[in-house]
């Protein structure tokens, strides 16, 4: 084993969001603040706002394989192929045994288990009717494994369970594995199929943390005084991560360089977030990146639209970025909902084009800003143009006290 400290860059992005199936369309809609959150009707639970993706499901895999696998696998296969296409990368240029697939998940198996319990309820709960597909569908590596099956990748694949910090955690895992020399290239990202589970909706509702509004596109409203909870979305986003020299060698488009990251734990409460630890997480990522808070041009917040969660993150941001007059702050969940395991990566992806156009997409649905969330330079309702965007800090936090921060820098030839 050797340690490879070469620089690691993002060279491809594949995504399925509730309002887009590729980065360009996604970026355009984020800049316009165009939400396509809709209302769904869930078994047992009833109606709720949710983000549903409408990507071409059979573009890279037959319908038969989609039926055999999971929704998460279907999203993952689409995103992985799209990422490679976006990177203009033929994976035969790499040793397939040295490609890693790292997929962040908030949860997995919930949807499949609920469906199967319902299935056997049609047969008087006789487990002879329980599907043989249950285990391969619910093993935690399922979405990552379905990607390797589709692409013939024989390197390592696994999922990273990190609640809603999982998207960022997958990037961190991939960077670490590349620096260890375990793999030469990685497909890293996050996936959510949570909109298929009535239990996830019911549990947030029982916590009084499920967002609602007469207009589903207005249900997700982080930082607004009347915010009332989370809007659950499905989705996925996968990055191609390559060493900088390899990317330069093949003339790849470089979206940005991963220059810093951190993860830590609140060690405090099952669900309540804790700004103090979030601030520590951001500081550690900055320290590792060798950056000062004033170097950050844009903070993409995790804020989900819950009363306390948004306030805690704002406290943390205020504490770390107290004197940063040129640091903008935005939030993507207001537009796409909370894509759970995909949230961190989808939200970062939507901001990467800022390195090119210096535009900052807005946080929408803020009618009356909560004074406790009134951060300086919070971009509200309309996109703004910054003087320049060279460094983005991306936060993702999750239940049981897990925090993650990833810092991405614009690549500029020195």
């Amino acid at each position: 084993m050797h340690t490879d400290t070469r620089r690691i860059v993002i060279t491809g992005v594949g995504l399925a969001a509730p309002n887009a199936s590729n980065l360009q369309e996604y970026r355009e809609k984020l800049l316009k603040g165009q939400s396509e959150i809709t209302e769904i009707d869930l078994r047992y639970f009833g109606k709720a706002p949710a983000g549903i993706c409408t990507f071409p499901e059979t573009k890279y895999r037959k319908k038969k394989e989609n039926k055999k696998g999971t929704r998460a696998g279907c999203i993952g296969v689409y995103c992985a192929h799209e990422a490679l296409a976006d990177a203009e990368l033929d994976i035969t240029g790499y040793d397939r045994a040295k490609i890693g697939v790292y997929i962040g998940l908030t949860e997995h198996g919930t949807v499949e288990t609920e469906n199967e319990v319902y299935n056997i309820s049609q047969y008087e709960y006789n487990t002879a009717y329980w599907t043989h597909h249950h285990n391969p569908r619910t093993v935690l590596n399922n979405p990552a494994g379905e990607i390797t099956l589709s692409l013939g990748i024989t390197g390592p694949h696994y999922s990273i369970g990190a609640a809603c910090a999982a998207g960022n955690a997958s990037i961190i895992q991939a960077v670490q594995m590349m620096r260890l020399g375990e793999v030469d290239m990685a497909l890293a990202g996050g996936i959510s199929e949570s909109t298929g589970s009535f239990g996830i909706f019911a549990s947030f509702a029982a916590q009084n943390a499920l967002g609602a509004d007469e207009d589903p596109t207005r249900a997700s409203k982080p930082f607004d005084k009347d915010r009332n909870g989370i809007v659950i979305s499905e989705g996925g986003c996968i990055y191609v991560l390559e060493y900088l020299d390899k990317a330069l060698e093949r003339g790849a488009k470089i979206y940005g360089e991963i220059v810093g990251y951190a993860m830590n734990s609140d060690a405090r409460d099952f669900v309540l977030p804790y700004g103090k630890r979030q601030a520590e997480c951001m500081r550690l990522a900055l320290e590792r990146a060798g950056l000062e808070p004033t170097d950050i041009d844009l903070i993409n917040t995790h804020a989900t639209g819950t009363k306390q969660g948004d306030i805690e993150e704002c406290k943390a941001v205020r504490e770390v970025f107290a004197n940063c007059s040129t640091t903008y702050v935005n939030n993507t969940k207001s537009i796409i909902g909370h894509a759970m395991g995909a949230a961190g990566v989808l939200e970062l992806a939507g901001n990467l084009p800022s390195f090119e156009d210096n535009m900052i997409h807005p946080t929408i649905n803020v009618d009356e800003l909560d004074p406790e969330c009134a951060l300086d330079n919070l971009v509200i309702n309309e996109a703004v143009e910054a003087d320049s965007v060279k460094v983005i800090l991306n936060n993702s936090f999750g239940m049981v006290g897990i925090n993650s921060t990833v810092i991405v820098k614009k690549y500029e030839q020195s």
Partner: protein
Amino acid sequence: MKLFDAENEKPEPMGEGVTNYIAITKNLEKPMTSDEIKDLILEIIEDIDDEADFDSLNPDEPLRDQLDLDSMDFLDIVMELRKRHQLQIPEEDYPQLATLNSCVKYLEPLLKDA
């Protein structure tokens, strides 16, 4: 540990996107003919793969090779026969479901007794 309380919970219509598990139990009123059994098998395979091409299917050659079915697909056929006709097919009999004609030969007496 019970996940659900079977006595108090009444199944309701499935939510969107849940299509893999729909099964209709058909009680036979009369014995199935061999053609009906063939249709049944092909219908089940079509549910598994709606792009399956039956045009050049040789009824005496293995279904798996001709229709690109794997072991999980094969178990889907076994499960559908259980759901639709309450047939419990023991593992040692699986080879008898290899070809379309062997399916008919094996299932005909069983479906007569159903």
